[in-house]
């Protein structure tokens, strides 16, 4: 899936995974929590949950993960001095 992020906050193999995860979470935030609603006509099933992300709590959880990645990046001088990479999508 391509990134929806303006700003790529991480770079490298492990970090790219985090970016993809954040991109998915942003997609979930928009698709599941927002949009035009017809009263009483939304019926979803979360029984088979491969997405444990539903809801803001998971987004916060993901943010915490991102923070961990950012902290680990800051601890690595070579990467911390690299220019911020930007997504090709935008």
């Amino acid at each position, binding site marked *: 899936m391509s990134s929806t992020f303006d700003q790529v906050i991480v770079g490298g193999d492990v970090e790219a995974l985090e970016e993809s995860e954040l991109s998915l979470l942003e997609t979930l935030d*928009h698709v599941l929590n927002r949009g035009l609603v017809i009263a009483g006509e939304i019926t979803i099933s979360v029984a088979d949950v491969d997405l444990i992300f539903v809801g803001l709590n998971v987004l916060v959880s993901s943010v915490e993960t991102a923070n961990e990645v950012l902290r680990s990046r800051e601890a690595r001088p070579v990467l911390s001095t690299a220019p911020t990479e930007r997504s090709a999508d935008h």
Partner: protein
Amino acid sequence: MKFYLYCVTDADPNLKDDPGGLAEQIVEVINSKSLFVVASKFDGEAVPVTRENVLQHEAIVRKSFSNTTVLPFRFGSLITESGLESYLKTREHALVERLAQVSGCVEMSVKIIWQNSAGIEDSEVTVPDLEEVGAGTAFLMFKRGEYRLEQEARELEAWLADGLKDVVRQEQITIEPTQRLVLSASYLVERARLTDYRRELGRLQAERTNLHFLSSGPWPPYTFANIDLEFGTHFGVS
């Protein structure tokens, strides 16, 4: 058999060559007067929330968005054919009006995360040791911490709104002072002003290097799609 709804558009989004919709059904464009509804048939009572389904919904909305102005439906919107006809008939004016409001615009999102270095100490938002300070003092200390967080969050909200006011058409900002994810903002931005928006947001980010910003977009206008009639109508008071 019901229809699964992706979005309402102001013109035919021309999706002929696109992959199928949810549950491998063909995506249809249903025309009603000046409105077009992108939908597919759905044989079931509930839509499973899976990664594949969510991304499929977003992909079809985004494809429609590339050709037309859209109001995306929230994931999981199922309706009978007669229900859809009735909805379009009774809401046509409001939908057309809302489409005009978001025409030529995209949605951009910003999320801001507190960091300790932002001046908010952990000790100010945790409950103090009751044996040391007593219950009354502990309560007051906790409330003082909460109050300070709220003040900081409101200042952050005002700062962001002021910094972007000249480059956005509409905004919706939510603050959660006691959460790490303190601010979530959605902005309706004219496509022609996206460069200005990004420049201003970049300038703001540079001002507050002690905060983490998560910015995303452009999105179809999910946050600005609702026509605010559903609640009243649902209870028969519209």
